[in-house]
């Protein structure tokens, strides 16, 4: 079957999709967007979390056919998504999501050494939660990171100053095997504090 949907603001079309394919598979293997991770493929770990029409979902549990005509944001589009939101005053304004015009400008960042990341990505291009994860040491192997970023960003969109209990509740669907979570909490607190300062 053919599936048409919007990914990070860009209209996309996937052909020859099997009925059984998940959104995660289509993103990773057909669209060349491997940022969403495949750790359990049964909705238990949250590594594959994306936003589907604004709602965080496990993309491994979404059948590709279900996204027909809908909007998906993955970690690859998170920075632009957050920027757009910041510029339009957050969700309350109804401007959540990336406008088509904005999104058309989206493109993958210039090539880098995938092992070291030494070649320069412009740090200003990161969303506050992405930068906070780096600064707080919340990234070790990083496999859980994309899913956590999507979930944490959505939390901060809803709640600008979450309590620790709120953060734990919001991230309880995302497993991380490396960090012990403490630095992930630090990162969310840091992003919230920076957002608070910026206002």
């Amino acid at each position, binding site marked *: 079957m053919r599936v048409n949907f919007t990914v990070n603001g860009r209209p996309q079309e996937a052909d020859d999709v*099997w009925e059984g*394919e998940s959104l995660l598979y289509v993103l*990773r*293997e057909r669209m*060349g*967007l*491997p940022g969403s*991770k*495949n*750790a*359990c*493929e*049964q909705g*238990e*770990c949250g590594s594959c979390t994306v936003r589907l029409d604004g709602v965080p979902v496990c993309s491994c549990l979404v059948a590709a056919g279900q996204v027909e005509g809908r909007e998906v944001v993955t*970690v690859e589009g*998170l920075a632009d998504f957050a920027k757009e939101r910041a510029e339009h005053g957050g969700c309350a304004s109804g401007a959540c999501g990336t406008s088509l015009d904005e999104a058309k400008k989206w493109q*993958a*960042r210039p090539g*880098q*050494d*995938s*092992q*070291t*990341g*030494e070649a320069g*990505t412009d*740090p200003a291009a*990161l969303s506050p939660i*992405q*930068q906070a*994860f*780096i*600064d707080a*040491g919340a*990234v*070790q*192997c*990083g*496999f*859980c*990171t*994309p899913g956590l*970023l999507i979930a944490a960003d959505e939390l901060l969109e809803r709640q600008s100053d979450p309590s620790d*209990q709120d953060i*734990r*509740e919001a*991230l309880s*669907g*995302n*497993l*991380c*095997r*490396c*960090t*012990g*979570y*403490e*630095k992930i*909490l630090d990162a969310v607190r840091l992003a919230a504090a920076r957002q608070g300062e910026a206002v």
Partner: protein
Amino acid sequence: MAQNTRTVPAGTPTNVTQNHTKGGIGESTLRPDGTLKVTGEFAYSSDMWHEDMLWGQTLRSTVAHAEIVSIDISEAVAMSGVYAVLTYDDLPAEVKNYGLEIQDTPVLAHGKVRHHGEPVALIAADHPETARRAAAKIRIEYKELPVVTDEASALAPDAPLIHEGRDDHHSGHVPHPNIVHRQPIIRGNVAAARERADVIVEGEYVFGMQDQAFLGPESGLAVPAEDGGVDLYVATQWLHSDLKQIAPVLGLPEEKVRMTLSGVGGAFGGREDISMQIHACLLALRTGKPVKIVYNRFESFFGHVHRHPAKLHYEHGATKDGKLTHLKARIVLDGGAYASASPAVVGNASSLGAGPYVVDDVEIEAVALYTNNPPCGAMRGFGAVQACFAYEAQMDKLAAKLGMDPVEFRQINAMEQGTLMPTGQVVDSPAPVAELLRRVKARPLPPERQWETAGEGADVRALPGGLSNTTHGEGVVRGVGYAVGIKNVGFSEGFDDYSTARVVLQVINGEAVAMVHTAMAEVGQGGVTVHAQIARTELGVTQVTIHPADTQVGSAGSTSASRQTYMTGGAVKNTCEAVREKVLEIGRRKNGSYHPAWATAELLLEGGKVVTDGGEVLANLADILEGEEPIDLELEFRHRATVPFDLVTGQGDGHVQYTFAAHRAVVEVDTELGLVKVIELATAQDVGKALNMLSVVGQIQGGTTQGLGVAVMEEIIVDPKTAKVRNPSFTDYLIPTILDTPTIPVDVLELADPNAPYGLRGLGEAPTLSSTPAVLAAIRNATGLELNKTPVRPEALTGTL
């Protein structure tokens, strides 16, 4: 004296602190791969993609022990989209087995399967679903054999032999062919010492089978090459060890198997053994196309070895004043169907079986069994974890029997620098066991009943059971428990443990730039960060690039045993020092006549300059290197030699370095439903020297959480009748979520080890040891129950077992 126009004039010393190179050791430099990891651009092994690639799939046995009567692949081969189906008969070389130490693991089962989930056949197809469907079409007829699942069935007189006709180097000294390896440690006179004991305590402890449960599944991409070889991009812990095992079964010389590390999503010991590496290469070579294999979570539980489950019997004695008299221990580790790292796990469990305590009269015996259970091997803490669980429970029992405070009792017996290990080895660097305990104890306790809110009853989210709203605080009791542990660093028992680093220094765009090339597997621990820090410190440069890890450079050894910062960090340091010598040689040649310090002073590289130890600047690094060939050196680094433990007495200087951590756990238990909430897990650890405190703390918190997991929820459950795994999924094998994990305050001590690079101590594993027994001690303290088994399940707390 003539002045070099390119240097600061002599006689105007520059304070070197102004030239201090940023991002050197001791600073919390951020990960170089952080940006890629938060943007989704970092390429993990499961993200590899190649035009025209096929998907590989493994067919695994559905039974634990059986003869293979027949395999019929005809239907699978005939399916459209299927490119190859391989069985044992298709293996191209004489060598058909692999293994870390004993080559007893078949690439594909031949004649027999020995555990549930053993690989039997391989499929390559154009879509992963095609491959799965083809696998389902392969017909295998098994004739089931009786299963060996525990010590009694393994050592029974008529027990089936898991490996008939063994002739490995351990088979000559083990008392039974179903024992992989046995190590006694005997010192002093236990019978005489027992006479001096005022109290004696005994305990039988059971440690469940833990899984590494790294998030990034086993995966990789094999690309056939024109020269008949293969390029493999894979997530592993040790490229060169893989290479040694892969090349012979492919029938290729090692140069024709080129390996590159792809992004690794955690490891924790679970990637020390081969998983899909050989399978992907076989399929790629057969089909002539790139083949990608990605395990799903179900297969991942079968695709790597687990932590050895163990039964431990301990007897300790102590005098009235709290001094340990003796220790008698027997540790039985279940190694499962193949040897993997079992011999080394036995060595650790026995030699570290007395814990960080002074006890002169010791009889310890550790064995690992061959059974039809899933193979077990390396996991964070490696043998020391199981022992720590038992000896720490014993310490609490002894303290209780003597009416002493459990921390004080431990401190009375705590080893220190100069103590003799039960192996006779002298602990020759700081061993601050008593101090670590003091620190966790001195920390203020978290407030009681934090879940009580002013006026509104309980915030159920903070209670055991959380939002499932099972209690409002009735029947919730608190407990506090302590534990401390000792772990070795690096590979022990005479292993030729070394690491290699290549460093290139050159001028690029007028700036001195260093490149560090090693084969170290970055599995998330942050090696890439500290290597750059070391190069900056040693070479005084700002720009350091890390070359991707591959087999084009010498071996870095394994990313395990807490050894990489010590070993590959040490190799980077040594190579940088040699590069520095070259720089100074060139400097002397070019500028030596301009300033006497070139010939006489101790010279350093700092802030891109050559400076004297007095802080006087002699030259710019870039000026020295300008117009020269890049300095390009590759050197090996070895730690001090160790020896194997004596096979009868266990004596010998078998370990390189010891590392210590302590925990205090505070728990709340809902005694009605048997639910545990860990409130806090305070940690103190000696790291010798923290090269990067941010990473150090992250490692300690992560290790602590894995110990917490095994205390209250993690266990691979194997059916004792059939040896089949019952819970191979994240639905049924539970790892801690952010709701299960408490705050983990970390107190870091830095007492230098004079024998180690920068004085550092390997640190990744130690926190996993003591976290589990601390949680158990806290639950016992809260409930008054014995609790001798991990994980503590609700039934154990409510008496409904």
